[in-house]
């Protein structure tokens, strides 16, 4: 029906589309579009344009904007169209405004009134159109204007409206959680809606709510499990089937929710084992959607409290994914592997060669995913190989976003697992050299701190060794032509602090180098500042050591230049340098102690050194100081201001005269942050403070972690740096412990599984692995002697490994047999769904059909009607195991057999109408019509006419 009704547009519009289609260059296209914009600008402002004409103009505007040009001159006309009474015109208006306007656009205020009116309309299609607009356009300020109406619509008789109302509330929740926080019960109620579409939509807001606060939804675990069970058993209407899978999108959403609810909760997880196990068995792994569900099952299994059997099924699916020829599945397999190794670290080993293949794959996406996996499985034994590979890859790519990410990962791994000072310094040098300006400045500060503090709590010589090797390597690197600014800052700082510390290099040599840096990078003020300060330190140390100081001529000229610098910062540093050089040894020792960058600077915030002076003054009759908070008759100013600010932000616009007081907005600042600002002694020099705050505020740093820019220092056991800087370790350790505890019994099971797989595969084909790959595998996967068992065709196993595998064969042949029989006879405890799936495929209640049935007088008698009652009765039994009353409603809702339900009849006729695919007559007609419109398939676009699905 679409195509015959499709060409309503004028010849003019079709010509536009056609000429754009035939444009040979971007420039030509731009010229056509700019012409069109001129035409539209002229036409659209003419008086008394007929509605249909106007509608077409608006659609042309949409087209222009879609091609990336500015059509803002017409926005106001689109807004006007939404005011129209005719749905036909209104719909176009709403479409245009949702495409044109972002939620912060000024014109939105003009639409709010129309939306309010339309939400009250009798015509449900008008309400739907308005709700679509609500989801896109309503912002935090305008939520109160429509919220009551949207909530009311949750009880609308049309399920399409209820569904959209739910989604609108979900959007409100995302924009301003406090605005709908009192509506949680409504979401719970909608979960039991008798329309599966509404129920499915409700899972979206519930997922978000549960993500924020798991504990208040624990009571729903049983309900979710039973819904998932029913969906998997095909109790939903057939219309929700997709490629023979029962409502897979709902299944996926439910699995996501279960993963959240079962995380770290043994009791909740136990409820889920059966249903997830069923899914593993039932899912069709030949279709994409089946694999999507399987993948989601793995995510769920790796998130909930571990269960040996499920982990085994998950591992099976992963190895199937990894062995697949499809890159998509390999990618998902690598991702799933990354999730599962957190629980059972051994599982990676059996897939080592598959992982290495993915690492060397030409597909960048796959490669990156594999790096992510390697990052997750880095240990001190394989850190060198992994970080080297990462750096090589980092050097080879141009994508700055990813370069930044991989650089920070390298740094993080190097800090955590570095096997030696030498290696650590070298690695950091490489990262800075190749990604210097992309690295977060904090990484540089961190590096300086590490070099200053060292890492050996007991061993001072190791620290000085680290510093010497750093100084040496930096002096070497300074010879390179162009270095990133951040790296130069580190180099200058280290040379200043430790350049002369071990006596290997003379002060004049180091100062010479520093002057060179300042000269070579003379337009980088920060580097220059670092260089001057480093010079000052070197000279100060010389003076303090009672050695004679000879200022180099280049240093003189640098100082003179900077004394007249436009930058006040540089000028001040130069003056300080001049002053320090003139001081005697004793004074210098006090202001510039050697290697004191890590000493705490005590800041006496209470100003106790003034006590004497204060007391003296009070004795002389001065008024004592009264703290702000204790002053009587004064409002608490800071509080007042806060409130004021809050008012301004949440009620910028008022749509009603009076409102009920709203529940208070929850403060999003974690208490830890408040506490940290009150720390009295500033523990370190200023520039280091930021990096300290990260670990001291765990919640903030976890946020930061997601942006992947900063180092995630919290909760990681550190090999480098003071152990005191990871305060989160206590908590994270305990959780880690928990999972480990759960896995101990799992390990046995998964290792036997791996053995069976090994022999199973090795019998399938002879495998040969290149020694190079083997070596890489060994270094990555902890040098295990086991070689690969992939059935990679065209590979032959090397002699040594054949023997190895053969020795396994007799031992585990029994297990192979076991594995083969397993699917036939599943464990009895998982077999609680006795009925074969065949019975549940019977036609079920489609609420749309119910309503259609009400409207449609040409009802066709259906044989299935006789069948339906006993299927309904079957559902009625199910709520037995459900304690939640609401949940019972869902079931009864689903099982209410509507009298007017006529499955089959109406749909088949529609189907015939719609399925035009095989009808050649239609295609010919379409073709003819298109040609008639003057649009011919141009030679440069030959498959324009080819069916998308063909």
């Amino acid at each position, binding site marked *: 029906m*679409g*195509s015959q009704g*499709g060409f309503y*547009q004028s010849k003019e519009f*079709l010509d536009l*589309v056609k000429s*754009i*289609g035939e444009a040979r260059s971007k420039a030509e296209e731009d010229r056509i579009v700019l012409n069109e914009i001129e035409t539209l600008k002229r036409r659209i402002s003419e008086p008394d344009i007929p509605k249909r004409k106007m509608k077409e103009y608006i*659609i042309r505007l949409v087209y222009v904007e*879609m*091609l*990336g040009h500015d059509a803002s001159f017409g926005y106001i006309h689109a807004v006007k169209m939404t005011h129209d009474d005719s*749905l*036909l015109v209104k719909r176009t208006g709403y*479409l245009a405004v*949702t495409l044109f306007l*972002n939620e912060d656009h000024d014109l939105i205020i003009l639409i709010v009134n129309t939306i309010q009116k339309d939400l009250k309309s009798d015509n449900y*299609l008008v309400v*739907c159109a308005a709700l*679509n607009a609500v989801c*896109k356009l309503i912002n935090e300020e305008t939520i109160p204007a429509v919220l009551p109406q949207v909530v009311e619509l949750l009880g609308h008789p049309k399920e*399409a409206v209820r*569904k959209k109302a739910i*989604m609108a509330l*979900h*959007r409100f929740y995302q924009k301003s959680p406090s605005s709908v926080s009192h509506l949680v019960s409504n979401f719970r109620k909608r979960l039991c809606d008798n329309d599966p*579409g509404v129920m499915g*939509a409700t899972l*979206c807001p519930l997922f978000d709510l549960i993500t924020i606060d798991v504990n208040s939804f624990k009571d729903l675990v049983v309900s979710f499990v039973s819904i998932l069970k029913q969906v998997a058993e095909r109790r939903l209407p057939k219309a929700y089937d*997709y490629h023979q899978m029962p*409502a897979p*999108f*709902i299944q996926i959403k439910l699995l996501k929710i279960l993963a959240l609810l079962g995380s770290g909760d043994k009791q909740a997880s136990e409820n889920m084992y059966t249903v997830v196990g069923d899914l593993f068995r039932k899912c069709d792994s030949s279709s*994409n*959607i089946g694999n*999507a569900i399987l*993948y*989601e099952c793995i995510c769920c299994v790796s998130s909930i409290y571990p269960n040996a059997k499920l982990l085994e099924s998950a591992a099976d699916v992963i190895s199937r994914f990894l062995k697949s020829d499809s*890159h*998509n599945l390999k990618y998902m397999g690598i991702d799933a592997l990354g999730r599962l190794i957190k629980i059972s670290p051994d599982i990676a080993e059996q897939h080592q060669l598959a992982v290495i293949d993915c690492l060397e794959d030409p*597909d960048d996406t*796959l490669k990156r*995913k594999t790096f992510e996996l390697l990052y997750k499985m880095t240990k001190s034994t394989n850190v060198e190989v992994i970080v080297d590979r990462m750096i090589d890859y980092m050097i080879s790519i141009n994508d700055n*976003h*990813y370069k930044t990410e991989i650089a920070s990962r390298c740094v993080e791994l190097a800090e955590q697992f570095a096997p030696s000072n030498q290696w650590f310094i070298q690695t950091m040098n490489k990262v800075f050299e190749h990604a210097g300006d992309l690295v977060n400045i904090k990484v540089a500060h961190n590096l300086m701190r590490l070099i200053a503090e060292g890492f050996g709590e007991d061993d001072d010589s190791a620290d000085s060794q680290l510093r010497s090797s750093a100084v040496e390597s930096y002096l070497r690197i300074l010879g390179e032509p162009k270095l990133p600014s951040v790296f130069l800052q580190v180099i200058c700082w280290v040379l200043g602090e430790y350049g002369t510390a071990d006596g290997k290099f003379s002060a004049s040599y180091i100062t010479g180098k520093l002057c060179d840096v300042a000269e070579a990078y003379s337009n980088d003020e920060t580097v220059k500042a670092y260089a001057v300060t480093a010079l000052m330190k070197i000279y100060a140390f010389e003076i303090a050591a009672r050695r004679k100081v000879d200022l180099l001529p280049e240093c003189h000229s640098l100082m003179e230049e900077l004394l007249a610098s436009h930058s006040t910062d540089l000028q001040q540093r130069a003056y300080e340098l001049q002053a320090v050089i003139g001081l005697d040894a004793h004074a210098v020792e006090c202001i510039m102690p050697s290697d004191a960058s890590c000493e705490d600077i005590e800041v006496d915030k209470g100003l106790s050194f003034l006590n004497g002076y204060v007391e003296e003054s009070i004795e002389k009759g001065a008024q004592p100081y009264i703290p702000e908070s204790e002053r009587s008759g004064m409002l608490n100013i800071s509080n007042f201001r806060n409130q004021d600010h809050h008012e301004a932000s949440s009620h910028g616009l008022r749509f009603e005269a009076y409102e009920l007081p709203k529940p208070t907005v929850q403060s999003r600042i974690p208490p830890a942050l408040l506490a940290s600002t009150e720390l009295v002694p500033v523990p370190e020099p200023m520039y280091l403070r930021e990096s300290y705050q990260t670990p001291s505020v765990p919640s903030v740093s976890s946020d930061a972690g997601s942006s*992947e820019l900063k180092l995630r220092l919290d909760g990681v056991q550190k090999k480098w740096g003071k152990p005191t800087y990871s305060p989160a370790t206590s908590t994270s350790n305990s959780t880690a412990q928990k999972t480990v505890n759960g896995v101990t019994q799992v390990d046995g099971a998964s290792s036997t599984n791996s053995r069976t797989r090994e022999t199973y595969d090795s019998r399938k084909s002879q495998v040969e692995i290149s020694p190079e790959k083997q070596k890489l595998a060994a270094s990555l996967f902890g040098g295990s002697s086991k070689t690969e068992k992939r059935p990679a065709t065209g590979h032959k196993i090397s002699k040594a490994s054949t023997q190895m595998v053969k020795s396994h064969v007799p031992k585990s042949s029994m297990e192979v047999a076991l594995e083969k029989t397993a699917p036939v006879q599943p464990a009895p405890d998982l077999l609680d769904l006795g009925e074969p799936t065949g019975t549940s495929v019977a036609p079920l209640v489609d609420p*749309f059909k119910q309503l259609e049935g009400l409207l449609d007088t040409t009802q066709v008698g259906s044989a299935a009607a006789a069948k339906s009652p006993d299927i309904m009765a079957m559902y009625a039994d199910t709520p037995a195991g459900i304690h939640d009353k609401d949940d019972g409603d869902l079931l009864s809702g689903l099982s209410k057999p509507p009298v007017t339900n006529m499955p089959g009849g109406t*749909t088949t006729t529609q189907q015939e109408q719609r399925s*035009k*695919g095989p*009808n050649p007559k*239609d*295609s010919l007609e379409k073709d003819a019509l298109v040609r008639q419109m003057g649009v011919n398939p141009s030679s440069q*676009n030959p*498959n*324009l*006419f080819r*069916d*998308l*699905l063909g």
Partner: protein
Amino acid sequence: MIHFVLLVSRQGKVRLTKWYSPYSQKERSKVIRELSGIILSRGPKLCNFVEWRGFKVVYKRYAGLYFCMCINQDDNELEILDIIHHYVEILDRYFGSVCELDLIFNFHKAYYILDELLIAGELQESSKRTVLRLVDAQDCIVEIAHQQASSLKQGIG
């Protein structure tokens, strides 16, 4: 959450764009340029996923048309592939063996259908039949309006 939907032809021409997260017009052009550059140059055997600026873009090619959706890091890529396919199947039913030309000339209809399928970046309806029924219901009103208009004309004439 889906951040945006993009339909780009093999020649890099934009056929449909729908933004569920705020992007300025300038950013939009940049995103389209950047992504079509990445996606169109990818070989046929590679993954249907691209990691991009901390997001993931899932794409699928149908004849000469690429359907792309941008999602969060922790979303299920295979599911998105099927949402794309779901959309294409609905388009196919609606237009009757849909081809690129249908979408070029009736892009607004493709938008209406998309609005019934996705809302605020989430899948709102997974039943093909329900989506089509709603779109048809809207079209019916259009038909009626046209009929009324023409009968009115006849009456006057």
